[in-house]
């Protein structure tokens, strides 16, 4: 199958998945007790039955289920995710506003986790009985077992309260709204450090362990033995051959983990008040802003599907074994 055909197949399938997600979310929210009208009424300070009926009519909530579902699906198809009564903004706009912050957090933490993780893993694989190896083992255990919000809170206590080095939360000092892009970026970076490190901590552990295991496996293989026998320098053997071939599992895991990374991001954003999709989701849930909730669920599923497709394609490119399929 050609690349294009594979891509088309994946994308097509992804679309089907997406529609299924939307239907599931919509159904769930419809069968749950209470609806948008209650939420709107509650927010207004209460409303009697006639006002509730009026609200329901205005939002089309008195229509039969299938027609509501169809309406929602067709609007989603044109990327109109509805209107958030709570924020008084179209959901799509709301999500796009918050998206960059979350992306920044996720990607910076993943880059940190991958680069430091691979480095540590490689060092540990190279010297199996060293301190580094022990550190990697310990780190990986801590990374998995420590609840991410606990790590975040500990970091806050340490670096904001006891030693006030970093700001307590948020993304940028709002007073800098007119400052230069450069100044703003520095300030954002300053705010980014603690949340980024917190989110990276889980995956750093995972990636370093994975790299180490993967390297160990590759190092024991015939391929490497041959390279060594050929007289290639140890460094070259190590980095060019072993590392390249151990990246496959890393990419797979990194891609598959994306859904978990997003969950982690939600919690980290809550701890640090980082204005991304996670805090938006939490606020929307606490305010029962169903259009926004559905929009975020849809959007994150979309991102996961896209990342899965990309991971799949990247894997095909770097791992010759799969290409042969």
């Amino acid at each position: 199958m050609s690349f294009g055909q594979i891509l088309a197949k994946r994308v097509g399938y992804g679309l089907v998945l997406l529609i299924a997600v939307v239907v599931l979310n919509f159904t769930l929210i419809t069968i749950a007790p209470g609806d948008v009208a209650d939420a709107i009424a509650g927010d207004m300070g209460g409303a009697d039955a006639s006002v509730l009926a009026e609200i329901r009519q205005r939002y089309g909530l008195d229509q039969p289920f299938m027609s509501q579902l169809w309406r929602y699906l067709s609007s989603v198809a044109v990327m109109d995710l509805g209107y958030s009564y709570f924020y008084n903004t179209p959901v799509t706009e709301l999500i796009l506003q918050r998206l960059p912050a979350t992306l920044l957090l996720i990607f910076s933490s993943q880059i940190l986790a991958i680069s430091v993780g691979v480095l540590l893993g490689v060092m540990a694989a190279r010297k199996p009985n060293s301190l580094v190896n022990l550190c990697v083992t310990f780190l990986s255990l801590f990374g998995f077992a420590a609840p991410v919000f606990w790590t975040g809170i500990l970091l806050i206590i340490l670096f904001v309260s006891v030693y006030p080095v970093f700001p307590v939360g948020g993304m940028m000092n709002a007073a800098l709204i007119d400052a230069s892009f450069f100044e703003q970026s520095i300030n954002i970076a300053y705010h980014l450090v603690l949340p980024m490190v917190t989110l990276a901590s889980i995956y750093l552990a995972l990636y370093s362990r994975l790299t180490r295991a993967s390297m160990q496996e590759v190092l024991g293989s015939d391929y490497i033995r041959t390279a060594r026998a050929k007289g290639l320098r140890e460094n070259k053997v190590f980095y060019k051959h072993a590392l390249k071939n151990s990246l496959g599992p890393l990419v797979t895991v990194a891609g598959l983990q994306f859904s978990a990374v997003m969950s982690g991001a939600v919690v980290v954003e809550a701890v640090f008040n980082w204005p991304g999709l996670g805090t938006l989701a939490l606020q929307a849930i606490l305010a029962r802003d169903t259009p926004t909730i559905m929009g975020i669920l849809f959007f994150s599923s979309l991102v996961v599907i896209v990342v899965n497709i990309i991971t799949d394609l990247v894997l095909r490119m770097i791992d010759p074994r799969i290409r042969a399929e």
Partner: protein
Amino acid sequence: MKLAFKSLFAATAVAALMATSATADEPKTGGTLTMAIQQTPRHLNPAVQSGTATGVPGTQLFASLLRYDEGWEPQPYLAESWDVSADGLSVTVNLVKDAVFHDGVPITSDDVAFSIDTVKANHPFKSMFAPVTEVATPDAHTAVIKLSKPHPALLLAMSSQLLAIIPKHIYGDGQDPKTHPANSENVVGSGPFKLVEFKKGEHVILERNENYFMDGLPYLDRIVMRIMPDDSTRAIALESGELQMSGFESSPRNIVRLKKNADLKVSNAGYAAIGPVNWLAFNTRAEKLSDPMVRKAIAYAVDREFINKALNMGTAPTALTGIHPGSPFYDETVEAYDVDLAKANQILDAAGYGKGSDGMRFGLSIDYGWPAMKPYAEYMKPQLKKIGINVTVRSSADFPTWAKRISTWDFDMTMDNVFNWGDPVIGVHRTYSSDNIKEGVIWSNTQQYSNDRVDAIMEEAGATNDPAKRTALYAELQQILADELPLYPIFASPYHTVSSISAVGNASDSIWGTSTPLDRVYLK
């Protein structure tokens, strides 16, 4: 390092003080004030939305007719003078002559009439302008408000966020004012500050209105209101100087902690008009709670002392009635139901609720609407266990769920915090009036309490301007309520305004806390 920071701050403050000792107390113009607000406002127009989340930014954007000083004296604002007729049935308001909206259009009596109509039709507090029959506009700067009966709450209702003067030429376009786009963007207001940016969930940024009708004001160039719902985050930010001011701080731990900080002024002055009372509300039509003996027993079991000392750390005044202790109408002589577990047990025994083999008589549920109320609801569980009531704490994932439960009477007991809003007519009557048992409306008479004498008292007190008469009537009201206990008041929310001593001047000078124009606040 924190200590070093603090002493550095203190040293700088002293130096600054010495440097400007000649003009130490004179307001300076300029600068950006960074303050915190605790919830995201849905939009910024207080004319169609209640709540301080909208009120704090809203009162900067929109002016009202009057404003009140710390002594509960009404001061001129958009109204440079006013007059109440002898029979109390008409109030004449004279507007400032040169006031304009943010877009330059003059503010006239037509806008006042329009605003009153809009508030009357859309604002949840129906009692504010219910007696208004018409607003006449004999000339561009005079409005005559005609009433169906004397309305003692009118002047208060014309201040702060309760009557925002909105532009008729914007809101009179036929769109529903509750969802009008100008509520959040391109806001055209009448107040001391204009809107720069409103990023929901993040901040509201305001800048000086150069055409503000009060000369020389506002002092500040800009106000940045950061939306920070987390108590600890705000506390840290205030201590580090990231925030210079924060209003409506009520977390006891924060208050105690921040008070220890030499550079922070933590003042509870100025919240008397908000009048927040926290109580344990009973659904008087629920099975067990319809028996007043049960309610009395619970009242004897709840230990106000413990709550105020341990949970509130001594920061909150005790509230014995549904009227705020800071109100001139408060009656502190009512039955206090000081904690007496033996008596509570006796009452329940005598009323026929025997203890089962597990020591329990019956079960009740308790709700709470938002996280700050949780500790008080949780307190009830072990405390009422001591008199044989098995309490189940029900959580609601979100405010609307709780609001729906309470307003549809699907509850036994709930913790609640309700504001007096200055005059009992506005915020107190709604809790006890038989007419206000409205299904689906939160903060109505959700206790389903009904007493003819109470209704009569409130009717009379709401129709006379005579303060002595009103005091007597409200005293009787509070005595009856303390006997019938549709709810059990516990404490008044300890709202404080926290501001940086070295950075901020005139932090609070009104009875409405920070839900008031900050035009006189300045940066040192």
